[in-house]
Structure formats: C-alpha cells, structure tokens
C-alpha cells in the first residue's frame, strides 16, 4: 500500500533498464519501496539493474517483457499482479529511433510507433484493469515534451509519444474515481544513455530530477507533471507559435 505521502511499497517497472525508471526506483527504495519488478527484454543490463536495486535493499525480480509483443502482455503482467498488490506501475519503455534513417526505412519507423505507442496501449490497459481491481495504485507514464508539437527533427518519435500522451490522458479520465491514479510525466530533454551523443536542448534535465518530480507528483496525486516545471509555461507559449515560424526554430 502507499503511505500518506503517496510512496509505494511495491513497484513494477515496464522498461526495466530505463535510466529514468532506475533513478526513480532508487529514490523510492530510499523511502518505502521494498519490492521491485523489472520487466524488459532479457539482457545483462536488466540483470545488472536488478542486482543494483537488490543491493539497495529491495526484493527485486526480473520478468521477460517485450513491448512489441502485445499478445503476450496480458499473460505476463497478469502473473505479476497475481503475486500481490502493485502500488505503482512505471511505464518507462520507449525508443528514440533514428529520424533520418527511419524516414528512409518505413518498417523501422513503424517499430518506433509499435514500441512507444501500441505496446504502451496494450500493457497500460492490462495494468489499469489490475489496478482498478485492487482499488488502488498509480500508473505513471513517461511521455515527452516532444508529444506536444511535431518537430522536423524527431516527428516519428514525437508522434508516437503524442499518441501515448493522448491515450494516457483518456485513461486517467476513465480511471477517475476507481481508486487507481494515472499520472502523465512530460520531461524535456533528459541526459540519459538514450540521448547520449545528441545535441542538448535548452532546459535539459537529469533522470534524478525526473525521479524527484515523480515522487512529488505521487504525494500531490498530480495528473500531469512537467520536468522541469518551467516547461509547462514554455510549451504553453510555443504551442501558439505559427507553424511557419516554429519550423525554423532551432529546437
């Protein structure tokens, strides 16, 4: 169960090698979290993440989970929920793709969409139903500032996050009043292994900062969290910039 400050005792991470997810897990383990499920494609990185979190004092399990294989989600995630209540699900998987390459290779572009959007839709729905049956729990979904407006430089990734973002908002409304809580997290540019080597955007942030914002959002039972918080205002302004101008902005 969560405590008075919204801190979960058990955590399921979809995308168990995500830097943001692991920073969040570290933060929550320092408070109340004692059980962590790391779901992801089997890899040494996933096992290492489990060993690392175990070292911090959490009982940690890994499960084999492939975002693209939507058919399998019900069975795989169902097993986790059958073991006991999950107080928080962090949906953290996603791929950035390679815009230039993906524009040339439609199949590769579709894989970005399948991972970030379709895979999220099916797994989030499975989790949402389980949380609702429990009568409690948070589903925290990592969206992106890129979901807010299409940008020339990454619209394939951005459109997949836009789909996820809209889906999550609707899911939050659907679950309102059921005891389950849905929280949408929109980070800006986060310095992680996923973005290593990319040119940094202004207002770049860190996985630790996202983790801090998630913890605060849980305490407040927020519906949307921007990281950094100032992005909310920046994006409110950018949303109204005419396309002809927006196209040319160095974003």
């Amino acid at each position, binding site marked *: *169960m969560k*405590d008075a*400050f919204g801190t979960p005792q058990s955590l399921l991470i979809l995308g168990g090698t995500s830097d943001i997810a692991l920073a969040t897990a570290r933060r929550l383990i320092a408070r109340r979290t*004692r059980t962590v499920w790391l779901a992801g494609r089997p890899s040494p990185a996933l096992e290492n993440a489990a060993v690392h979190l175990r070292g911090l004092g959490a009982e940690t399990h890994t499960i084999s989970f492939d975002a693209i294989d939507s058919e399998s989600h019900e069975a795989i995630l169902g097993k986790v929920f059958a073991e006991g*209540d999950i107080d928080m699900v962090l949906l953290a998987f996603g791929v950035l793709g390679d815009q230039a390459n993906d524009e040339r290779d439609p199949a590769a572009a579709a894989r970005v969409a399948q991972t970030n959007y379709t895979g999220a839709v099916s797994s989030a729905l499975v989790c*949402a139903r389980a949380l609702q*049956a*429990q009568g409690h729990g948070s589903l925290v979904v990592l969206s992106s500032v890129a979901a807010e407006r299409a940008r020339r430089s990454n619209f394939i990734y951005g459109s997949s996050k836009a789909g996820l973002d809209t889906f999550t908002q609707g899911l939050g409304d659907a679950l309102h009043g*059921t*005891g389950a809580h849905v929280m949408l997290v929109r980070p800006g540019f986060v310095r992680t292994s996923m973005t290593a080597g990319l040119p940094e955007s202004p207002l770049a942030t860190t996985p630790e900062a996202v983790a801090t914002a998630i913890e605060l959002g849980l305490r407040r039972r927020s519906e949307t969290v921007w990281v950094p918080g100032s992005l909310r205002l920046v994006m409110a302004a950018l949303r109204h910039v005419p396309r002809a101008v927006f196209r040319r902005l160095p974003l």
Partner: protein
Amino acid sequence: MPADAAAAAPAPSHLSPDRTTPVTGWGRTAPTAARLIRPRTYEEAAAAVRACGARGGIARGLGRAYGDAAQNAGGAVLDMTGLDRVHAIDADGGTVLCDAGVSLHRLMEVLLPLGWFVPVTPGTRQVTVGGAIAADIHGTNHHVSGSFARHVLSLELLTADGEIRTVVPGTPLFDATAGGMGLTGVILTATVRLLPVETSWMSVDTERARDLDDLLTRLTATDRYYRYSVAWIDLLARGASTGRAVLTRGEHAPLEALERPKPSSTRARGGRFSRRDALSSPLEFRTSRLPAAPAFVPEGLLGRTTASLFNEFWYRRAPDARADELQRISTFFHLLDGVPHWNRIYGRSGFVQYQFVVGYGHEEALRRIVGRISARRCPSFLAVLKRFGEGDPGWLSFPLPGWTLALDIPASLPGLGAFLDGLDGEVAAAAGRVYLAKDARLRPELLAVMYPRLPEFRALRRELDPRGVFVSDLARRLGL
C-alpha cells in the same frame, strides 16, 4: 473494462456490489476505492461478510481514524453506522447495551439526562462504539480509567465464518479484538459500564507551564488529583520556551459546584452567568456548532506563520492559573467538534497525525523528540501531551505507562516522511510505539518492535480467519 466501470463509478448504493467509491480516513491521505455496504440488520452484516470475495472486508465506523484503518482497497467496507440502536440502559446499575454503530455523541445525548457518562471519550464525540473498541481508544482520563475496552463487559463479534460470538474480557479473543483494528471481525453490539455524574458540567483548572521541564514536573506532581488531565503544547515555541504549554484538568462538576459562589481567587470568565444557567437544568447536554470548513482550501494556507500566531494566541489567552471554572462537556473534551469538516482545511494532500508514547524513565527521548519537532518548525496547531496510566490488556492496544504526544502536520510539508521516520527511531529505541488508529506511514519493519504481542495477534487471526476475510489497507501496509 476500465471505461465501463469508470462510467458507473459514482454514487454507491445500498448493497450494490459492483460500485466502488473512494474512501479515506480523517487525514484524507492515500484514498483507495472499495464497495461500500451499509448493513441495516445483523443478517445483512453477516451476509456481507460471507459474500465479501477475494479482497475481503473491514468494518468502518465514523471514519475518524486518521489513516487507512477503515479502508479496504478493492474489497468491501462495511459502514456500521446503520446499526445504531441503543438496546437497553440499566439506569440503576450504570450499563448500556447498544449496537456498535452508535456514536459516543448519541450515547451522551441519551445517557447524560439519566446521570451517566461514557467511561472514556476521545477528542471527538463523532466516533462509534465499534471504532472505540477496535482502536481501544483512550481519553484524558487514561491515568485513572485506562482505555475504552476496560469498561466493556461483553461484546458480540461477527467472525469470518459468518457466526456471531459473545466475547467477554479475559479471553484471548477479547484481548485481540480490543485494539485489533477490526481485524478479528465485525463488532455488532457491546455492553459498556458507565460513569455516574451529577451534572453535565466540568469543573476545570487551567494553568500555564513555561517550558517542557516545567510541564513534566507539574503533570508528574499533580496529575493524580484529577480524573481528566491534558496539556496543549506549543511546538513552535523555541529556545527557552520550548515545550511551553497550557494544562487543562478537570472533574465532573458535582451539583453543589453549580450552587457554590465563584471563589474570589479565580478570574472565571462568565462564571456566574453559566452557573445560574447550569443550575436550571444540571444534566442538559448542549453543544455548539460553527459553520463547516469549505470544501476546497488551497494548499499551504496553514503554514508556519498561521500556526505560530495561533499557538501564541492560545498560550497568551490562558491564565497563569485559574481554578474551578465551569465548562460544558463539549468545550472541555471536544473543542474541534464545533467545526464540522475541519479536516478539510489542510487541503488536497491532507494531513497526518503523529501520536506516540514513550515509557516513564524515557523523558530524555521525549525531550529530544520535542526538541527536534520545535527545531524543524513543523506547522503544528496545538499538540497534545498527556500521561498514560497502566497499560491495557489488548494485544495491540496503544497505551503503555508513560508520556504520549499527538500532533497534526500537513502532509504536504517537504521531507515530512523522512523526518517522522527519524522520530519513529527515537520512539522505538525508547521502547515506545505509535498509535495505529492515527498511523498512515509507519515503516512496517518497526511494527513488531513497537508491538511485542504482534505474533500472538497474527496467530489468532490465522486460526480464526484462515482465508483472511478481514483485511484493511492498514493491515496490508503494515503486514498485520
């Protein structure tokens, strides 16, 4: 499907198993959803227990437990306030047999005119008899009278098998149920021993203590002369006045106290007027009611400045010493009941109440904790300090002989969780404990340290309720 269920979510109705509704405790933290069922008869209650399904059920009274004791995420919550009959009053012997859903407020209304009072009352009348037994509540008379369940002569318990058992003191089932937070079953009725009173007035002495040491000395030296004794302590005062407090102590006023002219040595405000008033109907039970707190309050309204100003006012308002003032029962015991829904003033994140006890001989720990709270500048309004007498037989009953301190803190205060974890450490090291009826955040690892009879409690539950029918969010969170 989530969408369908969500569309059907609001407005739970009587015995409608598919609707859920969000439930919280008085502190309004950590809401979870459950099917709310309001039985009107014992048979309906038994049927609800038999049908409560995989996520079990828990009884709920008036929801005055601060944390998650009367919540059961995804399962059933049995609202017991529909079972609220007073069955029999023995006006000569001083006992009452009533349903567990009766509130202490109702009992006072019925019993005071007959010259009887409830044996133990908490800081609010809005609790049920069932809730009072399940939390084995204490009042400001604990040092004289012990906790509520000590005055229970017998109770009827609906157990996991759907049977109703009569449970009497001195048995393991009684001691597991008193303070057992509803986890042994649903209390349906109770027979309670009452306290005779001549009037519905309190004769009250008030004095101020300069600092914590002064307060402890005064309480230790004179507590035994008073049936009721409590200190309001200003935890925002710092430096030399750390722990300054207002002591209020009293006794039920005898009839002759209403006739007695006001002693010249006191400065009782409105004393003469209230005495005349009182004499005309000495056993009348009157309460006052202020407008309710608004439904929406912005976060951070109750910051340090507000709390400091209020505490300062409260301390200054009290006289250095005043004796024999007449006060209404509602003023003396239940000041907050005058403002309906006052819990809303803490805003959306809600608030936590931190209440702990440390044994006599551990005054150093108490000083350290008070020092840490003062230094941390928690915006706390009127914390309460009192002395407990002998411990109670309930396995999970909270009181043990020592000092207990209770304070409210807004849950939105940054870093509060870690801070309170630190205080728990001090409490546990001083062989003390925190109160489960108030808890919403204890580290589960500390539970067995604080409650050494937990293994017996768990064993009895396993035997009595092998399928785990009775379960609450509190039980899940702490592994009760």
